[in-house]
């Protein structure tokens, strides 16, 4: 498998305090990697360093062999897309107009999206079985649908790497699985490498190929899901004694030990 994104010795400081440091990992083509960690452990900071929304203090990020620091903002946007956490406070654009903004990195500064861009946007929605959303007001659809629309925008950006910032936040039980299944499907179908930060280790175990565990700003453990997702690792990661329930001989679920009593 080919390495899509390589991160070496990444470090970021804010007002003199090291937020993340010594971050090394690779992401393979067409895989789904999940970042786990407690609140404030540096997950979002790490993601923001990967598409240069934050400037890393030191370290190297290469995408498809190109150094992140040598690329323009526009070039980065053609390689990495971002699906932000769900939000609603923009003007009441239609979903199609939100999705077509994913074409921005491919348009000249004064250019407006043309028919081919709208076609790409429609196809992105089709890929997610959400074509029906196109004419709807982005602010008036459900949280799950909004997340789908933002995902479609990232798809319309046609990047080889996609970052998802806590994609299942604000989603109900069913929608969480629905969305992650859709993401996993795309990841395989379109060979997109996906890096998502998440809070629920059980959701991560179901969908992730690889897991990166971040604690106090640096990588505590990384590797394939089955090998990393252990009681011991999760206990250390979340600073709480973790128990597990085996559903069958391959699948297990984690709970804080005191719940299992």
């Amino acid at each position, binding site marked *: 498998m080919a390495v899509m994104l390589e991160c070496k010795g990444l470090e970021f400081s804010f007002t003199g305090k090291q937020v993340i440091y010594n971050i090394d990992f690779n992401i393979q083509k067409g895989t789904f990697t999940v970042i786990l960690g407690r609140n404030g452990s540096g997950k979002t900071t790490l993601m923001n360093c990967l598409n240069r929304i934050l400037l890393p203090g030191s370290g190297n990020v290469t995408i498809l062999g190109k150094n992140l620091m040598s690329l323009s903002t*526009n070039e980065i946007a053609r390689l990495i897309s971002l699906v932000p956490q769900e939000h609603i406070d923009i003007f009441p654009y239609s979903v199609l107009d939100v999705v077509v903004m994913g074409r921005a990195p491919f348009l000249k500064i004064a250019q407006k999206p043309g028919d081919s861009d709208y076609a790409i946007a429609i196809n992105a929605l089709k890929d997610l079985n959400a074509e029906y959303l196109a004419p709807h007001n982005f602010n008036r659809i459900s949280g799950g649908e909004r997340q789908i629309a933002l995902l479609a925008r990232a798809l319309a950006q046609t990047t080889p790497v996609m970052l998802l910032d806590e994609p299942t936040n604000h989603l109900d039980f069913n929608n969480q699985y629905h969305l992650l299944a859709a993401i996993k499907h795309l990841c395989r179908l379109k060979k997109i490498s996906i890096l998502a930060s998440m809070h629920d280790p059980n959701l991560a175990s179901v969908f992730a190929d690889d897991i990166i565990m971040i604690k106090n700003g640096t990588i505590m453990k990384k590797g394939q899901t089955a090998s990393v997702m252990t009681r011991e690792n999760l206990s250390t990661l979340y600073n709480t004694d973790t128990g597990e329930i085996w559903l069958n001989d391959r699948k297990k679920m984690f709970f804080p030990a005191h719940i299992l009593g």
Partner: protein
Amino acid sequence: MKVVSSSKKIVLILSFLLAATFLTALISGRLSIQMSDILVMISNLIHGETSARDLISKELVFAWVRLPRCIMAILVGSSLAVSGAVYQALFRNPLVSPDILGVSAGCTFGAALGLTLPFNVFGQVHMLSFGFGILAVSLSVGLARAISIKPAIVLVLAGMVVLSFFNALLMTVKYFSDPYDQLPSIIFWVMGSLTRVTWNNVLIMAPFAASGLILFLILTFRLNVLSLGETQARSLGMNPSIFRTVLITVSSLMVAASVATCGQISWIGLVIPHIARNIAGPEHERMMPVTAILGAIFLLVSDSVARSMSAAEIPVGIITALAGAPLFGYFMFKNRRTGWL
């Protein structure tokens, strides 16, 4: 796309409406000038004939007062309206207008200072007004830069600081000004008026208005992306701080040029973009041309009303506020379910 063609139709209809309003504005006012008079004047001008005696006074009023004034109304109205639309997109806030960074407050203080100074150099009021307007915006932006955590909201707060400061300075000038001679002209300035517009003012205003309008119409799709906020605009390949700097500079120049010539004309920048969004949709490709035309129509109509309603002219700012405030209330009510008001 169907939507685009319908928005072209809207622009076409509004352009006709603007032309009609312009002609009506030309013939309305206390001195009656009929359409036929204007046609005679034009044909006389073309054939190099001198006009009849009773037409000469009309000709003077038409050519040196009414025509520049109506053209100015179009320039200022559309400038204020599109600046408002740009500010609302940049700050992702529908309650923002070009005044928010203190440009109008700075301009008004500059004008008041110019009016009260013991000497009177040519163009002193306009120059001081323009200069202090730009100074006020620079202070806001500079202060925000120095703080710089969350750019958009810090900029609004810095703007409030500067705006209040210049308002205080204005009050100081008012307090020390001569209440019989200077104070009325300051107040007239604060309320805004197109009374003293000359061709010179039009020539100064035109390049600001034209270049700003062209720039904003070119960048409409980028404004959509910018209105998603800093992080998303960046992830879509844009450098928001560069765009913000350019767009704020250009719209501040437009507003400063407007206020320096016509005084503070309120509500256009706030309410016209809302009306345009209701007519054409929130996408800037569709709403920006509509905003420009509507702004022009709104100020033309307000100014015609201001000069024809009574024997003594009413400051146009009063008319725009009287019409703008209820309109804004109405559109707030109408948009209550779209999720951003």
